[in-house]
């Protein structure tokens, strides 16, 4: 009996682990009840043929992060409204899902499919080559194929602006940056933010921390981890913290509320996506990465018959990145920020892409 009891305990422990392993991205569960985009009104300004289907393939983080993926989902809704397209969405659980999901969308009749995240690079290259009559779009990466639009963002430029905003608004002279996984993509955010802050105040102290090493997916949904770091920094005198870590950013906002300090959002306008009046008092601004625009434009272009694909950079010059003004907390420094923005566009300020 004792052995059985041990085995049962072990089994339950394993189940717990299994559940934990599977639940790593449970940030996605909150908003899976989002309205089905398929019944979006067909008030089309670029009318597509009836039954035009567009697919969006999300990566393992998935919808509900309030930042990156939700921005892509918004892009799908925007395209549905504009063209009457039916949007089919698929989310990956594991490695093998990426290619399988792209293929499922092709089979489902999608004429344009957007992969959200650079992990789709290889699978999309393969599926795009096998399906030359379908158009594809990939966010954050480059796939060299005629039927693929590569949608790349200059996150460092937008981050430079919110870094400058942080330096202008900081009273303590200490600000912070919390990243998700320590990967090249997130280092671009860090590099721009630090450079922007130092551009305003060369003596400013910028604390930097990452929630996990490359490959640690929990870093995108680690609300507690972000909150702990942020609370520590606020207590030690930092007054503004920028978080580029998907769903984890909610932790920074919570810490900012408790410490009565500022948080800076990422990708989406988190003042709007949080929807919580308490949080809104503490979101200074957000670095906007207009994934929604990229996704919406890509689908609209194909719906309108333009299947040219190609390399598309979203930066300050085309408002592909920027900063949010909701709440009006940065209105007083908007003139300075816009000056910096113009200087970056003109090439007078060079923004680094790596710290």
């Amino acid at each position, binding site marked *: 009996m004792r*052995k*059985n009891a*041990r*085995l*049962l305990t*072990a*089994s*339950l*422990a*394993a*189940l717990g*682990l*299994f*559940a934990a*392993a*599977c*639940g790593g991205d*449970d940030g*996605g*569960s909150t908003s*899976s009840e989002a309205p*089905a985009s398929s019944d979006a009104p067909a008030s089309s300004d670029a009318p597509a043929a009836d039954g035009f289907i567009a697919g969006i393939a999300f990566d393992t983080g*998935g919808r509900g992060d309030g930042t990156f993926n939700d921005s892509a989902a918004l892009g799908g809704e925007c395209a549905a409204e504009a063209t009457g397209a039916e949007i*089919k*969405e*698929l*989310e990956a*659980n*594991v*490695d*093998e*899902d990426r290619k*399988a*999901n792209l293929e*499922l969308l092709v089979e*489902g009749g999608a004429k344009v499919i957007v992969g959200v995240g*650079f*992990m789709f*690079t*290889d699978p999309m290259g*393969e599926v795009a080559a096998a399906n030359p009559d379908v158009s594809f779009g990939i966010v*954050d*990466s*480059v796939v060299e194929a005629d039927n693929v639009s590569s949608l*790349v963002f200059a996150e460092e430029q937008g981050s430079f602006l919110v870094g400058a905003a942080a330096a202008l608004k900081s009273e303590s002279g200490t600000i912070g940056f919390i990243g998700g*996984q*320590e*990967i*090249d*993509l997130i280092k671009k955010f860090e590099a721009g933010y630090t450079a922007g802050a130092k551009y305003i105040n060369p003596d400013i102290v910028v604390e930097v921390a990452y929630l*996990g*090493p*490359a*490959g*640690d*997916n929990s870093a995108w949904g680690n609300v507690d981890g972000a909150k702990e770091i942020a609370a520590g920094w606020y207590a030690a005198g930092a007054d503004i913290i920028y978080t580029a870590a998907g769903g984890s950013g909610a932790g920074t906002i919570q810490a900012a509320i408790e410490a009565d300090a500022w948080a800076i959002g990422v990708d989406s306008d988190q003042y709007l996506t949080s929807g919580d009046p308490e949080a809104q008092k503490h979101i200074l601004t957000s670095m906007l990465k207009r994934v929604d625009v990229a996704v919406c434009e890509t689908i609209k272009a194909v719906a309108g018959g333009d299947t040219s694909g190609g390399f598309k950079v979203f930066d300050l010059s085309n408002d592909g990145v920027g900063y949010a003004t909701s709440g009006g907390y940065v209105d007083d420094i908007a003139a300075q920020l816009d000056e910096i923005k113009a200087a970056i566009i003109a090439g007078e300020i060079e923004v680094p*892409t790596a710290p």
Partner: protein
Amino acid sequence: MNRQKLQRVLVTSASSVLAIIVALVICAVILLITGKDPVKAYSTLFGAAGETKVLQGMLNRATPLMISAAAVAIGFKMNLFNIGVEGQMRVALLSTAVIGGAVNLPAPLHIAFCFVVAMATGALWSGIAGWLKVKRNVNEVISTIMLNFIALSVVAWSFDTFFRLDKEGESTSLLVKTKDLPRSAWFPDLVDRRLNGMLIVAIVILILFWVLVWKTKFGFQLRASGANSGAARATGVNPKRMIFISMLISGALAGLVGMRALMGDVHAYQNNLAEQQGFNGIAVALLGRNHPVGIFFSALLFGFLGEASGRLQLEDIPKEIVTIMTGIIVLAVVIINEAVKRWDDRRIQRRAAAMVEAAS
């Protein structure tokens, strides 16, 4: 096969099937509660089983799960709980990509060389936990969990610092990898880009696992130590040696888990490669009751559910429901197996008692 053994096999299989049916019923209730149509969900699910592509995908997904479940099961046989398969796999992935990519050998030799590197690295990593257990009596559950974290960080750091390949002028690509493995180290496909030949390796591993555990002296000692360590020690089995060796074997198998992804698919190391396959092996081993045949079928079930997940999502059933279903199946199997086992034990006891009574 004698009658008793046959009965046992029947009881085991029947309880697994019963567990799956119970799980499906519970899931139907959950679907109803969440406002989804269970009939539609299940017809999508079972309809997918008729598609060749789905079956290929199922086998392809099942391949690493079979190997990682075997790695977990060999520990289980000894009451050792190796949760570190994920970390052992990750360390082996990077070392194989780097060392395997640095040599040039004819194809079969090169593949064999890569396997040896992967197994050696996996065994090295699990050996740390084995050594700690034997020398310092550190609980292997704790040490392997910690070693998973360490593996993730060490691999991420050393990949980023030493082994990543930055192609010139391609600073825009955020997907970084190691140098590609030479073609001679690529594991061939059975069906081009759909089903990799590692499936055969996985099946051979399951057969060898069966032979090792049930047909050798080592296997007997292993099972004896697991069933009753005191009695095993009394018959001259060295428990420390058994613990250390089974941890090494477990780690060596864990090293091979990621090879389908590395040698058969991506052909280079990248972050997130083969992620979760080590963890999922724990559930597959539990569901398969640590027996090669059970592992084979439960790996197929997991592979199938994974393959069906996308189709269910298209039917407006959130992917989380599929994860919940998988969890419920495992839970149902564990509970029902335990219940059936107790019922079976009591039945045998009653019969024995009746025989004793009749004899007296």
